[in-house]
């Protein structure tokens, strides 16, 4: 594997290999005081974030550091990006400066693919850390790792993704990956928050959350961004919350053992009740914890495969 840009077309064995490596890394590090493996010593990983992000950037940074890579963080505000340099020039500069891997978040869909194209000759790997409303593949992988931990194999498991599918890169990456892993995916959202063309996705679509809950193994809540609330996609936050929010009453409709996920940041009281977020069914903090291991595994598969030192 050279880049991780999308989960669309990511083969089942490749995805499973990453997830297995993540599990292994998690076991290896469990209970260790010093969480540092020498695997990527001497490798340079640059995170390039054109959008604000705390959890994803920090997660990648920790993943790189626990693997002993040199991690450099570039943010759009504090570099020549702010001076109007093109994405291409910035990327070529970072590659020339010696990056083995560029982890990019960008507001434009497809930006990570463009970057990979420009860097294809230099041998620099690209990881998509979220491009516009397109994909966020490591989020889907960490969600899958978390679900596997709670549920075991995902084949024939029924998983709902609830909320703003239209603008969600998390939803797109999850739809592809979960389908690849054999799960049944249900998208639950008002029609205004589903993309035209969703009919060709390997999913079923519902507008009735209550009807879906009793048959689910997991429910993945999506954040509703403030600009959507004012963008006329639905009448009001209150009406949205009433129809699509996961409150305590709805939690009771889930079968025993079902899992609640949220990619964060959460709007407590909006798409997810505060008590629900903290309930035993919730795996939200595990998602964050697994995020580090999954990103370590991704870096391992991208960078350590060809002669890199193995830990």
């Amino acid at each position, binding site marked *: 594997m050279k880049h991780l840009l999308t989960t669309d077309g990511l083969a089942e064995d490749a995805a499973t290999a990453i997830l297995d490596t993540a599990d292994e890394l998690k076991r290896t590090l469990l209970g260790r005081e010093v969480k540092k493996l020498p695997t990527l010593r001497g490798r340079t990983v640059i995170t390039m974030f054109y959008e604000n992000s705390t959890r994803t950037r920090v997660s990648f940074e920790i993943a790189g550091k626990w693997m002993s890579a040199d991690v450099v963080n570039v943010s759009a505000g504090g570099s020549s990006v702010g001076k109007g340099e093109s994405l291409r020039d910035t990327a070529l500069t970072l590659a020339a400066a010696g990056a083995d891997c560029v982890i990019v978040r960008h507001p434009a869909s497809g930006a990570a693919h463009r970057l990979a194209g420009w860097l294809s000759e230099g041998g620099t790997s690209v990881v998509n850390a979220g491009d516009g409303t397109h994909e966020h593949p490591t989020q889907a992988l960490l969600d899958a790792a978390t679900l596997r931990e709670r549920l075991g194999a995902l084949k024939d498991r029924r998983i709902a993704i609830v909320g703003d599918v239209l603008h969600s890169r998390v939803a797109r990456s999850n739809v592809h990956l979960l389908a690849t892993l054999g799960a049944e995916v249900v998208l639950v959202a008002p029609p205004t928050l589903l993309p*035209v*063309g969703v009919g060709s996705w390997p999913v079923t679509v519902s507008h009735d959350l209550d009807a879906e809950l009793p048959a689910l193994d997991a429910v993945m809540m999506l954040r509703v961004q403030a600009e959507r609330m004012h963008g006329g996609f639905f009448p009001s936050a209150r009406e949205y919350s009433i129809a699509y929010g996961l409150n305590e009453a709805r939690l009771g409709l889930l079968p025993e053992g079902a899992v609640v996920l949220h990619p964060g940041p959460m709007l407590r009281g909006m798409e997810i009740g505060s008590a629900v977020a903290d309930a035993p069914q919730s795996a939200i903090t595990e998602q964050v914890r697994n995020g580090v291991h999954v990103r370590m595994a991704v870096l391992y598969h991208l960078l350590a495969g060809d002669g890199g030192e193995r830990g």
Partner: protein
Amino acid sequence: MNEIVIRGARLYGEGDPVDVHVADGTIATIGEAGAVTPGEDAEVIEARGQVLLPGFVDLHTHLREPGREDTETIDSGSAAAALGGYTAVFAMANTDPVADNAVVVEHVWRRGREVGLVDVHPVGAVTVGLKGEKLAEMGTMAKSVAGVRLFSDDGHCVADPLLMRRALEYSTALGVVVAQHAEEPRLTVGAQAHEGERAARLGYTGWPSSAEESIVARDCVLARHAGARLHICHVSTTGTVDVLGWAKGLGIDVSAEVTPHHLLLTDERLATYDPVNKVNPPLRAGADVERMRRALADGVIDCVATDHAPHAVQDKDCEWAAARPGMLGLQTALSIVAETMVRPGLLDWRGVARVMSERPAEIAGLPDQGRPLAAGEPANLVLVDPDAEWTVRGAELASVAANTPYEGMRLPAVVSATLLRGRITSREGKIG
């Protein structure tokens, strides 16, 4: 006396080869092959049975001058036109400064004359600065030496229905045509790609077909009540064809164009992530492309227009959302029409003459273009080798910019020669 003999050409690709004798800018005689004896100084073009057509007329070209001479000039764009078989082009108004007054349109017209490779007709803006707020001085532009006959805010829709009504009403006194870029802006906020399966998967904000269709329907109704002529730029959706069929059935005076790229390319190109494929209106679905071809064949869509839109490398070699929309078209239009319409049998060469020369000349009211191939007519001609093929290379095109979506494609039909009023403007891929 400037004499040219085109020896052994098949008019409209029909019948036996004939000799066409051109003198003093007009077709002097047309006779049996070998029957014409040219004067000693006459230039002879051996056609060897190639297809002779009236010179092409493009209602929709961006020549970028003034303002973006780093991407195209009237000089380079005229060369591209001549090489593409065009004898008249309409230069869109979205220059910098905008062609919304007599000074700018006269400048464009004059530069076109100086270059002399193709008749450059400036299109006037409908509204001041293309802002959609206030009518531009259409009358002054129409009566200027440029004699503006076509008005458009292309690149922007005249979205305000009242302003569009006034523009249509006002145009009737001037005998000019308003050409609408049909795109309801409220339906295309942030839009990046044709709204459908592929854009959904790639996370591009959708560009709904309804944004085009709703404006076309509205404007047909407005034109009907105003008794005005309306032209629809770059039709791209099945629904627009339905609306045009309905409007024409009612006798509404509406005409429409389709671009070569909407006859060939689909939103499958999105998978490349390469903004060379970004264009406004966007590349649509396969079913839309099929419908464009049929509508052009049966006349619901009147003509082909290139929407030739040169862009600098830095405006294309970037992420999709940051890229400017548009693609080169002048030198590839004939080949795309040959590939999509002639090869599948949807149009013969007489049909090509209709959609690339006669109808556009009629729509714009050009008296000396799109004329029959007959003695006494102006010698605005293009000789086409229908059997030759060529491979598109952006860097080899005459435009300053190189943003062709057909890079590396092998296409049929080559322009052998173009004549503007009896003067050779291009021959065998070289400027006159």
